[in-house]
């Protein structure tokens, strides 16, 4: 599949500060790509380079086959963007905003349909400064769709929103993907990335420290899947000796780190055979958030270096 975005050795420096430090990644057409990182990691700078708002200090970048800085005008006709904390003119209504954007892009936009899509029909005639944070973001999303772009840049689109508003925006993002659009999503919410994105890049200090599907990243950087039993301390000692797997106690429970799916059956058989009695069983695995926290934490300690 062709690349909607291709970046090779992307750099942006401000004096001594290297905000973006040699990023390389590709985003396939028709996929959702999540860009994760702590505050100040270089996410927004990278996004703004891709959008043609900032000039890269070094590196090659193509967005929809265009140079974002030199061919910004052509690019802006083909992308939709929600910047962080979308703001608009205070005394303008969502309907007027959509009509304004439609004229700027020389497109015929169905304002009612776009407002329905982002669940903003009831606020169509309200001034922007009377909208809630979630409603403002929804308007930003509607405006990003006015020019029917093949590529959407969503910079923390659900930041600070209540769960209901977040889910509404997730639905619009999923629908955009179903419609064949590529989505470049930056977010603080790991759960959001895990839920929506096919591929994820974790960035810190301007470098990518992990990249792949959420599954791949968890598998590569997470700890082993765990079987958790509720039982006496002696059970932990017994299983450690008989299974040959790492076993420890955590919050009064026995935790077995598994290396294989078959370890589940073996562990339960040994627990039964021990006669020590156990009352409940559950499994646990790392989430993307666990991996993210661990990777970023280890990078801060100097353990992990750039993956690309």
């Amino acid at each position, binding site marked *: 599949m062709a690349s909607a975005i291709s970046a090779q050795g992307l750099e942006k420096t401000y004096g001594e500060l290297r905000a973006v430090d040699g990023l390389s990644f590709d985003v396939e057409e028709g996929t959702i790509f999540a860009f994760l990182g702590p505050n100040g990691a270089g996410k927004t700078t990278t996004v*703004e380079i891709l*959008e*043609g*708002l*900032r*000039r890269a200090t070094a590196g090659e970048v193509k967005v929809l086959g265009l140079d974002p800085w030199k061919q*910004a*005008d052509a690019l*802006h*006709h083909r*992308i939709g*963007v929600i*910047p*962080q*904390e*979308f*703001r*608009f*003119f*205070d*005394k*303008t209504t969502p309907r*007027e*905003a959509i*009509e*304004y*954007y439609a*004229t*700027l*892009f*020389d497109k015929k936009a169905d304002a009612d349909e776009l407002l329905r899509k982002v669940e903003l029909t009831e606020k169509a005639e309200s*001034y922007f400064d009377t909208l809630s944070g979630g409603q403002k973001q929804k308007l930003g999303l509607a405006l990003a769709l006015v020019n029917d772009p093949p590529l959407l840049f969503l910079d923390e689109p659900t930041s600070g929103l209540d769960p209901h508003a977040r889910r509404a925006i997730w639905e619009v993002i999923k629908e955009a993907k179903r419609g064949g659009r590529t989505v470049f999503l930056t977010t603080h919410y790991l759960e959001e990335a895990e839920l929506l994105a096919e591929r994820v890049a974790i960035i810190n200090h301007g470098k990518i420290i992990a990249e792949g599907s959420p599954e791949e990243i968890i598998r590569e950087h997470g700890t082993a899947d765990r079987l958790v039993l509720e039982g006496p301390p002696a059970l932990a000692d017994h299983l450690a000796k008989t299974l040959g797997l790492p076993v420890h106690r955590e919050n009064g429970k026995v935790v077995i780190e598994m290396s294989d799916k078959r370890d589940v059956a073996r562990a339960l058989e040994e627990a039964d055979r021990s006669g020590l009695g156990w009352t409940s069983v559950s499994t646990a695995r790392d989430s993307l958030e666990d991996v993210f926290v661990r990777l970023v934490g280890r990078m801060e300690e100097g353990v992990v270096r750039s993956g690309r």
Partner: protein
Amino acid sequence: MNARRTYADFKVFSRSYLRNKVALFFTLFFPVLLILLFGEIVTSSNTTVDLTVQNLDGNTNVSAQFLAALNHTGVLSLSFVPPSAGNLSKYMAAHDLTAGLVIPAGFSQAYLQKKVVSLVLYTDPGSPSTTGVVQGAVGGVVNYFNLNASGAHPIVQVTGEDVGSQVYTYLDYLTPGLIGFSILTSPMFSMVNIIAEYKKERIFKQISLTPLTKAEWLTSKILWYFILTFIAAFIIMGVSYGVFNSHVTLTLLALPFLFVGPLLFVALGMIAGAVAKTPESAAVIGNLITFPMMFLAGTFFPVQSFNPSLQAVAHVLPLYYVIDGMNNAMILHNTGQALFDLAVTSVIAVIFFIIAILVFPWREE
């Protein structure tokens, strides 16, 4: 430059502006309040000086003519105390009066017999301006009577004509001044605030991701301030004519100032907003530029009334040339000077426009 995009931006901006009651008040109604306020102060202030007259000569023909001549000067408002009131000086002190004239008994007879006769004029040393007016007016009438008595006629005469051979009032000069005030304040305050706020809220980044260009955005703002300036100018002139019977004429030569003026101050406001780091510092920079012009460029007071050093300062303020040009076009009908002012204003406007486009933060390197 795309007309559809420019019009779309104009429409959305003008709608927002019209919905902002504070902005509308300061643009359209504040100058009207100022002209009403200044007009009321000027028209209610007494332009004649009170002179208390004690006529001890009785109802004679000569004293009646003398009093009529005093009245005719137009600068004295006469009031009379009877001879029975006693000493005029004491009467004036008791009634807090500042100027008094005693026409002595036998004044008429002495005048007709061409004998020397003295009028007694009381004035208050604490009111030098009143004293000057009274002495000048009474002295003038006395001279006229002396010439008449001697059968002589004046050789040197002064013909009273005002500038432009019409009678112009302070309000006439205030009208272009307040139009200039409107040309200065509404684009300056608004643009400084908008630029700083849009930068802070990243609205420029948002707009720059659309096909709208920097020049189209700026053009739509200038168009809006043209319209606002025209509306404000017509309201100010309407009040000036309707309420104060001013003698200002909206000549063709005045119209270019209503175009070039807003262009100049929209651009200057953009520069101030663009160089400021925060909305707070933008407000300070805006005030530093606006307030000296508001008071020193001839808005409220004619620059000619300033001392030479302040006049020199006025001549480096762009608003001076806008107001001076409108004064020349609308009041003095001095076409040559108005064209010179228009040329200066246009050159400054073009320079500011180019600088504004260059420093305007649309994208970042």
